[in-house]
């Protein structure tokens, strides 16, 4: 049987991708950001999974306002890095895992989650920047990736509770897959940031760190936090943090009351407009 071995949480700032792609990682400004991922790169080399289930949000790339899905699962064999307006990032093509993706879609839709099934799409920085942070600049990504896009752009967006329960359904789906795959689930986006209006640049360290504490220790309670608290406390784009609850919901700790092991925790302000948060949790 397949199982979820670990979950990874990280911000997905486009400027981080640009810094990597333009060879600026050695600059003092960026060195501090990338230092937080040195451990993670080594960890991922030692703990390379068979598949990564990567939860992210599309930033007006694959989905236009013509059609916005709440949850979309990528079932294709590969996904091209998108041209978001700067030209495509010079990163490897993302290989999918159609069999596991289709299995998860089947199971999760049976569990009353109304996914949009995607057989073709381009993936933007929301997906490729976390891969770059965790893998550096390889010729090919270390394993297949199942992209899972969440609408956090056009309201109404799904609630934290809905996301957390979705994570649980994903765990159940993975565990019912009849091959011994090691699967990691990544939740990306956040932490506090606001990109728009006179409040642009908002950062809330206290909120972010409390969020990390509660995500580790009591995610079911954290999942009850209403949207307005994210927006007010963590900025209009801080709402992306609901995606971390999907990854956390897929971990076992919540069920057997055994908290997952914190392999790594990192927090840094700023990368561009954003507070960078990063966690690695292992199922014990």
């Amino acid at each position, binding site marked *: 049987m397949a199982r979820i071995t670990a979950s990874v949480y990280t911000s997905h700032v486009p400027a981080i991708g640009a810094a990597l792609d333009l060879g600026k990682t050695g600059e003092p400004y960026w060195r501090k950001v990338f230092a937080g991922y040195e451990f993670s790169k080594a960890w991922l080399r030692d703990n390379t999974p068979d598949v990564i289930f990567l939860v992210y949000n599309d930033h007006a790339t694959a989905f236009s306002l013509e059609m916005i*899905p709440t949850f979309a699962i990528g079932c294709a064999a590969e996904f091209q890095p998108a041209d978001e307006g700067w030209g495509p990032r010079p990163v490897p093509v993302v290989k999918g895992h159609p069999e596991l993706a289709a299995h998860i879609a*089947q199971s999760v*839709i049976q569990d009353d989650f109304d996914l949009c099934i995607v057989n073709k799409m381009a993936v933007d920085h929301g997906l490729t920047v976390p891969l770059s942070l965790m893998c550096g600049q390889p010729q090919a990504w270390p394993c297949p990736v199942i992209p899972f896009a969440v609408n956090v752009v056009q309201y109404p967006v799904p609630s934290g509770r809905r996301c957390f329960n979705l994570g649980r359904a994903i765990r159940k789906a993975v565990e019912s897959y009849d091959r011994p795959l090691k699967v990691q689930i990544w939740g990306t986006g956040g932490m506090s940031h606001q990109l728009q209006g006179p409040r642009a640049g908002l950062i809330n360290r206290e909120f972010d760190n409390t969020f990390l504490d509660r995500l580790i220790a009591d995610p079911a309670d954290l999942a009850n936090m209403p949207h307005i608290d994210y927006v007010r406390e963590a900025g209009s784009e801080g709402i992306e943090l609901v995606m971390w609850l999907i990854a956390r919901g897929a971990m076992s700790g919540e069920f057997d009351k055994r908290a997952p092991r914190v392999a790594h925790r990192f927090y840094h302000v700023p990368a561009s407009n954003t507070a960078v948060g990063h966690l690695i949790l292992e199922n014990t």
Partner: protein
Amino acid sequence: MAKIVGGINVTHVPYIGRAIANNLQQDPYWKPFFDGFPPVRQWLAKVKPDIAVVIYNDHGLNFFLDKMPTFAIGAAAEYNNADEGWGIPTLPPYQGDVDFSWHMIDSLIEEEFDMVTCQEMLVDHAFTIPLELFWPGQHPCPVRTVPICVNTVQFPLPKPARCFKFGQAIGRAIESWDSDARVVVIGTGGLSHQLDGQRAGFINKEFDLMFMEKLISDPLWVTRYSIPDLVELTGTQGVELINWLTARGALLGEVAKVHANYHVPISNTASGLLCMESV
């Protein structure tokens, strides 16, 4: 608050569009089918809906297999019909109700239905033909519309119990809208038919009639069946009857039959018509 005046479930087949275009309503092949509609038109004239919420499935006009939603809803001011490739006449645009659509979206996502929202949407024969049958020759159509698409094409499909709950949430969304609008809920598709494979032409009259009866008296009856069960019992395209179940769910509570008709065949399809009213 908006009021649900009742619901109508009906089969959709592109072929019907051609029969209408060629005035074949009295042709012996078509008569038993078209004769089902006058009582429904009389009922509509009596209950006078302002808005039709139309629950159907797209057949490769608006959605392609690149991105296939389980549940999608329109939020446009106008919905265009377009060439579907099989030579039926294209009908003029249908008026939407953007405020109402967004109210429904808010309410449905609040109730944990993971909608795909569409601010542009082409509507195909599964949407246009039923409206043409209910309001023949009336262009523009006399009601405003909200199209809701259920995936019946690419598996996995939403299971019947989920569709019924989705319908109930649609009903609550309608009834919580701060408006004096009168709303009719329309479900289209089915009944038993199969277009593909060596089993093409499959019809299950016994099941269809039972389904129509149970939809009135015990709509949860059909939720005992899984989607593969329904494929087996009603054919690969017969599963479209989940659109009927969704529409029935939206009527919230007990209903009485206003009118029903059942006739085999229209093209490859067992055609059904069921008009219901809350009691």
